[in-house]
């Protein structure tokens, strides 16, 4: 605003910088300085520890299931919502957003009430010796629940903005539905899709509350990276906790960089993403 005198302008910038420095930069910095507090040797040892490695593998496994599944369903939902008009569309959009409005702890609780020993399917599952909660399937389910809206919510505005003309042209030239999707729609939405995958993956690998409730916390078996960090921290192994946490902080930084690059390439994405929240 041109009316603001230079002094006011610099004061505003300084105050904003101080706030962001204290609330964003310092917490990020603490993760790395604390992880390296006892030198590189201790840092590497904490990450190379067999239990830490098991947690890393489990996190990768959960994300490798949850992200592709939610990509398929996100694209499907975006196709239905962006390409067609139907009654109840805004209700459907609200329902897709539901997991964002639910506390992560409750996201875990609902699966315990369904599949726990006291739950609806509890007796049936016990009879057939199938474990869902306090085991890996429960972790996958809880992660699917909390990451469900990401891809759909990024893609819907992108696909809506692109309209239907490209697809209609392809179809009128004789392409089948599948050909149209793979050769016309998918190339059109690839950056938006990548953006959604990036955010979905960050949440899938970092989810704590929902996963904590359904995990059962068996070391080396049902602990993801965030749960392993919690255990180390609560055992006062601060250096190890922060060393392992720094992996997640690096993932967060990579996510932010990837996100910025995509926004720089496709400025519309950012606008679409803001609407999605």
């Amino acid at each position, binding site marked *: 605003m041109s009316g603001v005198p230079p002094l006011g302008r610099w004061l505003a910038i300084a105050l904003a910088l101080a706030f962001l420095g204290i609330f964003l930069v310092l917490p990020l910095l603490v993760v790395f300085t604390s992880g390296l507090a006892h030198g590189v040797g201790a840092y590497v040892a904490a990450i190379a520890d067999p239990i830490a490695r098991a947690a890393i593998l489990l996190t990768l496994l959960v994300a490798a299931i949850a992200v592709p599944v939610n990509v398929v*369903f996100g694209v*499907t*939902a975006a196709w239905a919502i962006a390409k067609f008009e139907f009654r109840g569309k805004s209700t459907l959009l609200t329902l897709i957003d539901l997991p964002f409005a*639910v506390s992560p702890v409750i996201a875990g609780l609902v699966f315990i009430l369904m599949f726990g020993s006291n739950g609806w399917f509890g007796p049936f599952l016990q009879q057939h010796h199938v474990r869902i909660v306090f085991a890996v399937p429960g972790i996958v389910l809880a992660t699917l629940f909390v990451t469900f809206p990401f891809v759909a919510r990024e893609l819907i505005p992108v696909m809506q903005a692109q309209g239907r003309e490209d697809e209609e042209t392809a179809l009128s030239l004789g392409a089948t539905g599948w050909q149209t999707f793979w050769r016309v729609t998918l190339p059109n939405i690839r950056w938006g899709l990548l953006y959604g995958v990036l955010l979905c993956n960050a949440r899938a690998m970092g989810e704590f509350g929902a996963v904590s409730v359904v995990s059962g916390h068996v070391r080396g078996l049902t602990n993801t990276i965030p749960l392993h960090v919690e255990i180390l921290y609560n055992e006062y192994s601060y250096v190890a906790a922060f060393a392992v946490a720094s992996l997640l902080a690096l993932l967060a930084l990579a996510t932010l960089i990837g*996100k910025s690059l995509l926004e720089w390439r496709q400025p519309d994405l950012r606008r679409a993403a803001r609407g999605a929240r």
Partner: protein
Amino acid sequence: MRPRRVIPGFGLTLGITMVYLSLLVLIPLSSTFARSLSLGVGHFWAVIHTPRVLASLRLSFGAALLAAALNCGFGLLVAWVLSRYDFPGKRVLDAMVDLPFALPTAVAGISLTTLYSTSGWLGAALGALGITVAYTPLGIVVALTFIGLPFVVRTLQPVLDDLDRDVEQAAATLGASAAQTFRRVILPALWPALLTGCSLAFARGIGEYGSVIFIAGNMPLKSEIAPLLIVTKLEQYDYAGATAIAVVMLLLSFALMLAINALQAWTSSRHAPA
């Protein structure tokens, strides 16, 4: 006659979406409500109406409200500075605003706790002033402020970018001071978005768990948030208690979500993209 749909796959994609949404989200959530109904009203009320549960709900809502209010002010300042001024490092800072979305909550939790503990960088300095943040309700507000910041900034930025600067110049030309222009011209255009952003931060703060439990201290009646009480009750196999608290939180969150949807519809109708 209805126009024939040219693009295929409507039934298929909508069908798959509905089935997946129902199986993963709607049925599990409704079963939680069904479970709480089976408690009966009397039992449900007895579970909720205990000092510990009420204190935790009050704390979760109160701390989230306070953090949202803080973000209302600082988020507006950050969005304003990022949208209107140029300074070195601005793009990096702009990208950093999304850190709370990208950083896992448990990492944020242990990092904030270390920062604000009595031996931490900020905790030591604040301690000298007689302020304790870690293991107090103040720590919860700090964690929720961290979590909520991007909601406010990212909701305000596009509205600020779209604001017609000619109107501000006109106000200045007509003799309005900077403060008057802000209060009479900018704020009226901004406040639906500001309210939306703060409500989003508030809604997220109510249910937040990972970043809070490390810094909170978790003393019953004092610094125990509602989501933590759900976890505690689950660990004690008190499913009825956990479900009752969850249902109260869900109902309040859904009401808030509907209010935010209405706000967003109002905001976008006022700031229709050109």
